[in-house]
């Protein structure tokens, strides 16, 4: 019995097995309450007003920045930039760092398991700068081998983009090792931690990541707030991405000087309620502790793997190496399209994602069009897994007499 479920009003209000936390997590009442309280007691535009309320809003906003810096062990609080989500953070890096630092014949290396958000911006930037985009491919165990990493990251590599955990396969990449190797070759490394930070402790100094990004909404915070971490010396040299209010120093008719970090990258009124919610989400995660979160997830995900492996009509897309697999399980009922499976699961109250998961190049590499994906988080239980298995059996029963020599 998982008693954390009671913290999540939507899971109390709806009789569902929510298995789509890889897309977005549900929100605990502590986060919802914090946002409500902010609007009831502290709302004003930070950085703008000389009056008490604005100063209070500023303090809440800026103290959350400090909280996040501590949470991921950043050396300086101004290394934390608020954004809309991981996608915006990655675009900021691509435009403000990539566009200005890549030259003809330089190489950007990413993995085939990147989300489109860490892929499409690099296509754009490499095309404009005449540099090259190269891919590290996975082996038959859905992992990046050391040989592949060392073959692709070379002296020509200037930027490496790597997801910490694949949103499709659940593979945990050894980012520390990739960063170490890339640094030896003189490249900087961007880590997409969107799928990892909800589940494991992130220490940017220990990883020695040059940039690291994540979305708040995948870690219990509201939609629409994300974070960019960057090493101060890199961020200081970068040009602003979005121009406007609060990111300037002096503005003349024809020229502008820009504000210091972090304001330089935070133009316009920010998503303060999102930041407040993110702060509350971090408090919640810390109050439970990553050890406990991993204990809960390990029990539920191991059970899921065990039960799903028993279904002989199912193909699972994940590494057999337990230590390198997180809490995402992609699967297909052989011969049945994932959208049909997802609709049938929906009819029994099981929420899974189906489709290409914003990873079309990975799907093409695997030779499939799409998968179903069940992704787990701290509120999930073995009962949720049982509901999934029951739903899958039902889907298979409905389809089996029509499946004729179709294999995927």
């Amino acid at each position: 019995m998982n008693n954390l479920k009671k913290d999540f009003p939507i899971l109390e209000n709806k009789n569902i097995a929510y298995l789509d936390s890889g897309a977005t997590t549900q929100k605990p009442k502590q986060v919802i309450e914090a946002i409500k309280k902010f609007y009831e007691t502290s709302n004003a535009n930070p950085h703008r007003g000389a009056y008490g309320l604005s100063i209070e809003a500023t303090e809440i906003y800026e103290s959350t920045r400090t909280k996040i810096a501590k949470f991921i062990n950043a050396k300086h609080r101004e290394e934390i930039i608020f954004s809309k989500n991981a996608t915006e953070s990655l675009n900021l890096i691509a435009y403000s760092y990539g566009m200005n630092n890549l030259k003809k014949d330089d190489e950007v290396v990413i993995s085939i398991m990147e989300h489109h958000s860490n892929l499409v911006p690099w296509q754009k930037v490499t095309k404009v700068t005449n540099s090259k985009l190269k891919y590290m491919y996975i082996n038959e165990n859905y992992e990046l081998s050391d040989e592949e990493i060392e073959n692709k990251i070379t002296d020509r590599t200037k930027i490496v983009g790597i997801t910490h955990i694949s949103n499709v396969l659940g593979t945990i990449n050894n980012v520390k090792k990739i960063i170490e190797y890339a640094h030896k070759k003189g490249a900087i490394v961007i880590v997409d931690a969107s799928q990892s930070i909800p589940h494991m402790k992130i220490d940017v100094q220990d990883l020695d990541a040059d940039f690291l990004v994540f979305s708040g909404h995948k870690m219990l915070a509201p939609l629409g707030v994300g974070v960019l971490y960057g090493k101060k010396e890199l961020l200081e040299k970068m040009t602003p991405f979005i121009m406007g209010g609060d990111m300037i120093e002096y503005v003349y008719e024809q020229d502008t000087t820009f504000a210091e970090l972090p304001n330089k990258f935070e133009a316009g009124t920010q998503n303060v309620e999102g930041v407040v919610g993110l702060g509350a989400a971090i408090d919640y995660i810390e109050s439970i502790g990553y050890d406990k979160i991993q204990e809960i997830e390990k029990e539920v995900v191991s059970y899921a793997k065990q039960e799903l492996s028993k279904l002989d009509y199912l193909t699972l897309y994940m590494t057999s190496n337990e230590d390198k697999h997180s809490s995402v399980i992609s699967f297909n009922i052989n011969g049945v399209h994932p959208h049909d499976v997802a609709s049938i699961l929906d009819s029994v109250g099981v929420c899974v994602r189906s489709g290409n998961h914003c990873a079309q190049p990975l799907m093409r590499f695997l030779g499939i069009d799409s998968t179903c994906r069940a992704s787990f988080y701290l509120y999930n239980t073995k009962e949720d897994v049982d509901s999934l298995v029951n739903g899958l059996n039902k889907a298979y029963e409905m389809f089996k007499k029509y499946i004729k020599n179709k294999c995927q």
Partner: protein
Amino acid sequence: MEDLNNVYNELIMEHSMNSYNKKKLENADFSEIGHNPNCGDEITLELKLNGDIIEDMAFSGHGCAISQASTSIMIDTLKGKTIEEAKDIINTFIEMVKREITDDEQLKKLEDAIAFKNISNMPARVKCALLAWHTIEDMLNKKDNVGKGSIDSCH
């Protein structure tokens, strides 16, 4: 549950998994690709005309049971119709799925395609049912523009 069985009924399942319309046409006059980028479903429709009459149609590609069955059943319904009749049927189907037409009498002309009436109860799947119908709509609109330089002909 009732909705689910209404949607995944015998007719739709048969057409989706084992369609006789899924093949290549020998001498197609027109070909059009339809794509749902969000889900990856992709079909290629082929059309052969005899004067003003749809003589033959076929499809290839991949997608979910709903999109595949909708494509196959659409082909059964439209084959042998004139282009004007086909356009009327296409509009009627689209309006049925959007619940703008609910009168069974008006829906008769859809023949077997009336099987998709209940797809409106599954909003997430409406776009799957509509893929083929929007694709043929585009194809016929382009056909009307023959000579204006915007046609994807097979020849």
